[in-house]
C-alpha cells in the first residue's frame, strides 16, 4: 500500500460537473480542505452540453409563478414517486442558486427590463427556465469552474476513481488512476461526495458521452449504499437520427419552447391526438392557442408538444411503428414554419437557437430556418441513483454523499427539463455543506490495505489476459442488447432474457484483454468502465421487472396502465451480503398536509 501516491483531504468530490463543482465550492467555503477528481479536463463534464436552461421560480416573466407551482409541477412530472422533501427544497432554493450564479459571473439572457429571462419548457406551467440561448450548461459549468479555481481547491483532472474505500461502515476515501501515466493514487478523505453523472452509455442511442458509464452508481453499490428508482431511464423525445453517425445527439426541447412543432409524414400534428387526462386542463386544443403560448400570451395554454418527455417519446414511437414516420424512422420537428407568423423568422431562430442551427447545418446539411428536422427518441437522463437523505444528501454509508444525476429522489418517475441544472445547484450545495460538516465532526478513517490491493488487482487484470476479445466489442453488444430489451417499451419476457444476456456479458468481460501500456490507454479504461455498465444494466433491468405497471419513463407493454398500488413505494437496490443483487420495495413517507394541499390546488 505504501507504494501508492497518497493524498489527504477533508472532503473529496468525485466529479466536476455542475453538482461536483457546486459541492466543492460550498465545502471550501466552510473552511475545509477539498479535492475534486474528474475523468475529463475541467469544464468538459456533461453539464457543458445542457442546452435549454435552469428551472427556477424567479417569476421574472410571469409573476404568477412561485415555489409552490414549481413544486407541484415537479411532483406531477415525477408521478408522485419523488421525494417530496427534495422537491420542496429544490423549488424553494433554486431561485437563490440561480441568482448566485449571476453573482459569480454568469450572463443570462435578459428581459426587456433587464432581469434574467425565462423560457417555456415541457411540464412547467409558467416560463421558468433561466437560459443563455441554447448553451446554458456551458454558461453554468464555466461560471462554476472559474469561481472554483480561485478557492484553493485541489483539482485532479483526468483521474478516474475505481473503488471507494471504507473503514468498517463509514467511508474512508477512494482509489483511482491517472489517465496520463496510468499510476494509481490513494485519496484519503473524511467524507466523499459522488457527483459522477449518469449511465447513458448503457444504451446504443444516447445523447451522453463516453464518461457516462454509471461509475458513481456502481461505486456506491459496491460500497454498500442503496440505490433507488433505477427503472426510470429518461428517453428524450428529440434526438438527431440522420445521418447515422449523429444518431442520438440531442435536439433541445427549447426548439419546441420557441414554437417548433412535431408532425408525421402526413403533415399532421399528432401530439394533439393523445393528451393525458392529468394535463388536459393545461394543454391547448388549437394550433392557434399553442402558438400564442409560445409567444408569451399568459392566457393561452401550452401546446401538446410541450407535454412531458416520456409521453412525447412514446407518441413519436407510435407514429413510427404505425408507418407514419419520416424517411429515416423518426418524425419531423419544424421550427421553420414560424416564418408564416413573424417577420425575420430566420434571424430569430438563429438568435434563440444558435447551436441547434449550427449543429444541423454542420452535421446534417440542414438549414433549420428553412426546413424541418428529423428526430426520434434518445437515451438521455437517469432518474435513478444513490438513495440519500433529502436534507443532507448523505447515503446509507456514513460520510458518503451523492448529488446531481447520480443521486435519486427529486425527479421520481420522470424529470422535467431544466430541473436537472437546478438540482445540481441546490443539492450540490447541500451535499458540499453537509460533507464539510461531517468532515469537521469526524477524523480520517483507517485505510484497509486489503481493499486497496483488491481494487488494484481488479483494475490491472485486463493486462494479464491475452483475451481474444477487446472491451469495445462487449460494450457495443451490451448497448445493443439494452436498447432492444430494456428500452422505451418493456416486457417481462424480454427483460428476463436481458438478465441472462447480462450474465453472459459478465463472463465475456472477465476475459477481455487489453494491449499496450498503462499510459493514456482508452482500451484499458473501457475495460474497467465495462464492469460498471454491467452492474448498472442489471440494476435497471431488475428494478424494471419489479415494477409491474407503467408510470413516467417506465412503460411496460404487459402492464400498460398505471397502478395505484405501485404509487406508494420506490424500488430500492442494494448489494446483498453474499454479493447478490437485492431488490426491495420501500414505502414513500407520508406527505405533510400543506404540501398535499398545494398539489390539490394546482391540479
Amino acid at each position, binding site marked *: 500500500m505504501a507504494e501508492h501516491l497518497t493524498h489527504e483531504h477533508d472532503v473529496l468530490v468525485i466529479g466536476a460537473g455542475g453538482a461536483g463543482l457546486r459541492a466543492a465550492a460550498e465545502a471550501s467555503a466552510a473552511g475545509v480542505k477539498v479535492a475534486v477528481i474528474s475523468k475529463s479536463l475541467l469544464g468538459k463534464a456533461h453539464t457543458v452540453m445542457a442546452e435549454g436552461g435552469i428551472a427556477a421560480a424567479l417569476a421574472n416573466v410571469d409573476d404568477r409563478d412561485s415555489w409552490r407551482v414549481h413544486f407541484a409541477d415537479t411532483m406531477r412530472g415525477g408521478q408522485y414517486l419523488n421525494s417530496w422533501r427534495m422537491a420542496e427544497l429544490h423549488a424553494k432554493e433554486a431561485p437563490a442558486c440561480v441568482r448566485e450564479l449571476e453573482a459569480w459571473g454568469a450572463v443570462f439572457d435578459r428581459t426587456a427590463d433587464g432581469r434574467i429571462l425565462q423560457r417555456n419548457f415541457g411540464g412547467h406551467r409558467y416560463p421558468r427556465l433561466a437560459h443563455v440561448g441554447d448553451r446554458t450548461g456551458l454558461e453554468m459549468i464555466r461560471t462554476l469552474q472559474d469561481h472554483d479555481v480561485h478557492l484553493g481547491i485541489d483539482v485532479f483532472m483526468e483521474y478516474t476513481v475505481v473503488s471507494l474505500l471504507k473503514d468498517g461502515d463509514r467511508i474512508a476515501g477512494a482509489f483511482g488512476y491517472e489517465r496520463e501515466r496510468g499510476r494509481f493514487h490513494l485519496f484519503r478523505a473524511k467524507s466523499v461526495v459522488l457527483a459522477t453523472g449518469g449511465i447513458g452509455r448503457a444504451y446504443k442511442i444516447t445523447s451522453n458521452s463516453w464518461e457516462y458509464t454509471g461509475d458513481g452508481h456502481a461505486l456506491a453499490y459496491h460500497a454498500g449504499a442503496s440505490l433507488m428508482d433505477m427503472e426510470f431511464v429518461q428517453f428524450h423525445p428529440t434526438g438527431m437520427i440522420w445521418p447515422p453517425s449523429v444518431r442520438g445527439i440531442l435536439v433541445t426541447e427549447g426548439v419546441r419552447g420557441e414554437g417548433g412543432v412535431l408532425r408525421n409524414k402526413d403533415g399532421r400534428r399528432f401530439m394533439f391526438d393523445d393528451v393525458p387526462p392529468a394535463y388536459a386542463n393545461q394543454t391547448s386544443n388549437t394550433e392557434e392557442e399553442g402558438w400564442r403560448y409560445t409567444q408569451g400570451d399568459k392566457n393561452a395554454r401550452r401546446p401538446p408538444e410541450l407535454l412531458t418527455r416520456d409521453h412525447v417519446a412514446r407518441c413519436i414511437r407510435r407514429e413510427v411503428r404505425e408507418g407514419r414516420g419520416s424517411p429515416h424512422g423518426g418524425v419531423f420537428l419544424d421550427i421553420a414554419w414560424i416564418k408564416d407568423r413573424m417577420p425575420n423568422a430566420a434571424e430569430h431562430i438563429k438568435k434563440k437557437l444558435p447551436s441547434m442551427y449550427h449543429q444541423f447545418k454542420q452535421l446534417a446539411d440542414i438549414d433549420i430556418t428553412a426546413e424541418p428536422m428529423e428526430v426520434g427518441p434518445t437515451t438521455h437522463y437517469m432518474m435513478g441513483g444513490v438513495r440519500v437523505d433529502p436534507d443532507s444528501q448523505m447515503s446509507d454509508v456514513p460520510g458518503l454523499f451523492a448529488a446531481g444525476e447520480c443521486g435519486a429522489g427529486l425527479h421520481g418517475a420522470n424529470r422535467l427539463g431544466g430541473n436537472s441544472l437546478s438540482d445540481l445547484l441546490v443539492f450540490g450545495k447541500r451535499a458540499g455543506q453537509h460533507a464539510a460538516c461531517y468532515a469537521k465532526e469526524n477524523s480520517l478513517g483507517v485505510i484497509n490495505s486489503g481493499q486497496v490491493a483488491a481494487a488494484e488487482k481488479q483494475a490491472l487484470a485486463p493486462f494479464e489476459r491475452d483475451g481474444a476479445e477487446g472491451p469495445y466489442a462487449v460494450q457495443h453488444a451490451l448497448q445493443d442488447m439494452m436498447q432492444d430489451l430494456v428500452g422505451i417499451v418493456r416486457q417481462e419476457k424480454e427483460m428476463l432474457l436481458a438478465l441472462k444476456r447480462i450474465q453472459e456479458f459478465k463472463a465475456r468481460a472477465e476475459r477481455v484483454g487489453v494491449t499496450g501500456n498503462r499510459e493514456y490507454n482508452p*482500451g484499458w479504461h*473501457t475495460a474497467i468502465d465495462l464492469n460498471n455498465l454491467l452492474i448498472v444494466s442489471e440494476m435497471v433491468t431488475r428494478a424494471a421487472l419489479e415494477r409491474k405497471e407503467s408510470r413516467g419513463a417506465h412503460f411496460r407493454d404487459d402492464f400498460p396502465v398505471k397502478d395505484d398500488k405501485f404509487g406508494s413505494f420506490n424500488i430500492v437496490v442494494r448489494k446483498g451480503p453474499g454479493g447478490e443483487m437485492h431488490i426491495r420495495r420501500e414505502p414513500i413517507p407520508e406527505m405533510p398536509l400543506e404540501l398535499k394541499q398545494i398539489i390539490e390546488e394546482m391540479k
Partner: protein
Amino acid sequence: MSTATFRIWRGEKGAGKFQDYTTEVSAGMVVLDAVHRIQAEQANNLAVRWNCKAGKCGSCSAEINGMPKLMCMTRLNSLPLEKPVTIEPMKAFPHVKDLVTDVSWNYSVKKSIAKFKPRPPDAPDGTWRMAQKDADRVQEFRKCIECFLCQDVCHVLRDHQMHDQFIGPRFLVYAAALEMNPLDVQDRIPALRKQYGIGLCNITKCCTKVCPESITITDNAIIPLKERVVDRFFDPMTKLFRVFSGSAR
C-alpha cells in the same frame, strides 16, 4: 460502403510516427467517428480526447490535413478522401500520447487572471439589471468552449513559444468578457499590458479564422482591449510628445 485511409500520429512525448489505418466510411461521418472506429477495431489503445461529439465541449481539437479543427465537427465529405487524411495533435502544447497534448498551461493561465467582481446589486433582492444589448457583447465571448485551437495557431505561442509572456487569444477573449461585463468593477488593464502581454499580438487574425464558435477574437476582443490599454497608458499628450521627440514606436 467505401473505405478511406487515415494517417494518424502515434507515439508518446513527442516521439512517434504516422501510421495508416484504412476503415469503412459511411454517409455523414465526421473525423471523430473514423477515429473511434479505428480505435474500436484496430487500435484499442489509440489515445484521443472527446466528450460531447457535438462541438460543445472543446475536447477533440486536432490538426486535420494540417488545419486546426474539432474532429467531431469535421465532416468527411469536406475532405478529399482519395488520399490519406492526416490527423495530428495540436503543436503549441507538449505532447502526451497519440492525439493527446498537455493543455494544463491554459488552466494555470486562467487562474492568474483576476476573477469576476460585480458592483453592488442594483435591486434590494440582490439582483442586477442588464440590457440584452450589453449582454450580447459579453455573450459572444462566453460562447468559448476552451478548445484551445486559437492558442494552437497563434504564432506567439506556436512558433515563438512565449507561453510565459503571453496569455494567448483564448485568454484575451476571457479577459474581454470580464472587462466588458457591465457589472464587473475589477481593473485588468495594467495586467493586460504587463503580465498578459497583449502587446505581443500583432493582429494577424489567425486565431479568429480557426475559432469553431466563430468568435470575432481579434476585432471584438483583442483590438478593443488594446485600445483600452493605449487610452490608459498613452494619453494624447504623451503620445504627442513622443511624436515630436521622435520616440514614437
